[in-house]
């Protein structure tokens, strides 16, 4: 096993997730613009439909991965003392995991 954190995988994941995020956000914007939901219930109903909820369920880990690589890059660039670096990487990881779990839980309650 390599002792190094990943370079190529992280870079590749960031790009692939960016493509999906861009694609899904465009769909979301198009839907909001072309067929604006009448009220919150209509919006919830749309989000809860199988295809859209799968789309959201994919969006959440994609966003978390994308953010993880970005935040990791910032920390690797700027935070040099090992202790601080470990602490900040751990905080970022826990935060992103928690937010993702929360978002997935909210999505689950809609369906």
């Amino acid at each position, binding site marked *: 096993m390599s002792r190094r954190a*990943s370079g*190529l995988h992280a870079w590749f994941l960031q790009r692939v997730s960016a493509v999906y995020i861009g694609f899904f956000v465009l769909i979301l914007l198009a839907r909001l613009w072309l067929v604006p939901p009448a009220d919150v219930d209509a919006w919830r109903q749309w989000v809860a439909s199988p295809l859209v909820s799968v789309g959201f369920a994919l969006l959440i880990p994609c966003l978390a991965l994308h953010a993880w690589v970005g935040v990791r*890059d910032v920390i690797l660039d700027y935070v040099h003392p090992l202790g601080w670096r470990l602490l900040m990487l751990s905080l970022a990881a826990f935060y992103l995991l928690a937010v993702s779990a929360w978002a997935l839980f909210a999505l689950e309650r809609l369906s």
Partner: protein
Amino acid sequence: MRFRIYRYDPDRDSAPRMQDYQLDDIRPGMMLRDALIALKAQDESLAFRHSCGEGVCGSDGMNINGRNGLACITPLAGLKEPVEIRPFPGMPVIRDLIVDMSPFYRQYRAVKPWLVREDPEPEVEVLQTPAQRARLDGLYECILCGCCSTACPSFWWNPERFLGPAALLQAWRFLADSRDQHSEQRLDQLEGPYRLFRCHTIMNCVEVCPKGLHPTRAIGQIKATMLKHAI
């Protein structure tokens, strides 16, 4: 013409300072290196490196009005006054405009900038087709002046671990060479979050390269090659 030049002698000075100079004898077509030589005649304590005087040796790289460049090919005519001249950013200063280039050369050496062949030495030259040779254009011309790497924020932040644009351009120069047989090891050596992947395509390197080379494109080609080998 007015100049403000960074002065620092670590043996004598407690801190760097900017010193003002005035040069009256400005001739048409004069380059910054000519002006520095004239200023050195006024004040012989001023220290800077220079050699060929025509943008080939890469010795007189410095920060000119906030932008890295070679003094010998920078015309005075285009410079805003006072011309502010500093050593390369982020590099240890030996004296005045002279910096210690060791961190830069260390990263250059790390990419093994020579052909590595596994096959036995051939009797004649290893031939290339014109197309194979053409792949090295835009890569072999690097003069290792250091303008690019010392303009790169990623190199300022992690000079020990990020190879920097100049070394990565050379890494690609040997990966792209049809005669080299060390691609897998070269790519393995570049993996990890630091050596290659600290590049965030800021493109200061492309902006300042006095030879008009494109390290960012070379870095992109290394990443694409890595990906091709990985999947």
